[in-house]
């Protein structure tokens, strides 16, 4: 019986998450959804009865068979819904995550960066350069997002499989460094 692992691909709406899933997945991206219930926020609820809001959150995902007994699923987080963090199951046990960023809307990446940092999930930032447009350096993005030095920033074009692979490898490199650090910490 094989084991499955997952990597999340987060980022703002329209930044290229589904495109990235599609360029490395062995199947066309699939979509699924979950109904989420959360406490209603704000004071617009005057009835005082309904304290919960139910929303349907959809996400795309793809699959990469690493070996017959090892399958990697890539999940694009629901970008249109900033409450995807409520979907605990999505992030739980993730090997790592990609935060796809668009330099024109870097602020759309803050929430994801904060989330993965606070959960201790290894991640890399992929700066999706549409049409080869590189108006920012990795250094500028790192400064703008206030990233830890151990978090890689990769300029990429996720429509290209080779480029998307580099982003995934950067995530896994971070995860490996963490795993090695754990080994050293526990020691023989």
């Amino acid at each position, binding site marked *: *019986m*094989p*084991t*499955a*692992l*997952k990597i999340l691909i987060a980022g703002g709406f329209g930044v290229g998450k589904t495109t990235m899933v599609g360029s*490395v997945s062995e199947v066309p991206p*699939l*979509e*699924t*959804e*979950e*109904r989420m219930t959360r406490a209603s926020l704000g004071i617009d609820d005057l009835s005082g009865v309904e304290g919960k809001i139910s929303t*349907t959150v959809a996400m795309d*995902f793809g*699959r*990469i*068979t*690493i*070996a017959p007994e*090892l*399958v*990697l*699923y890539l*999940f694009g987080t629901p970008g249109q819904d900033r409450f995807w963090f409520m979907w605990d*199951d*999505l992030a*739980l*046990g993730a*090997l790592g995550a990609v935060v796809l960023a668009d330099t024109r809307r870097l602020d759309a990446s803050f929430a994801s960066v904060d989330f993965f940092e606070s959960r201790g999930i290894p991640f890399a930032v992929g700066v999706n350069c549409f049409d080869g447009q590189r108006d920012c350096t990795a250094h500028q993005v790192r400064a703008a997002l206030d990233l830890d030095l151990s978090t890689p920033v990769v300029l990429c074009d996720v429509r290209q*499989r080779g480029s998307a*692979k580099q982003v*995934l*490898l950067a995530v*896994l*490199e971070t*995860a*490996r460094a963490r*795993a*090695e650090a*754990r*080994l050293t910490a526990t020691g023989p």
Partner: protein
Amino acid sequence: MPEPEWLDGEAAGRHVRPYAITGGRTRHSQHHFTLITLVVALEPDEVEHYSLQPESTHILRLCRDRAVAVAEIAGRLDLPVSVVKILCGDLLNASLILVQAPPGKDEQPSVELIERVMDGIRQL
């Protein structure tokens, strides 16, 4: 006080129908599945299970040849993930499927495992 909005047709079906399949349950009482819990059908032969929902039969068919993650079953059957989890819980109780949970959250991935994944990605 305004009347609650009554959903009809397509809009209602989208919300009501999935949970009709589960008998109104929104979670399984005994089993916990994650998005990437893998499911494989136990019986290789085409067996008719008259007591099963068509959706459950569909799950068995989908997981006959290889292990499929809960999320993928949901995507292929166009059902919410929570509904698939409940149906899989029932199939597990009926000993019709085998499941493999992913490594737990306290079980950190090893260097070897991560390197295997990296090798797999490089070979894409």
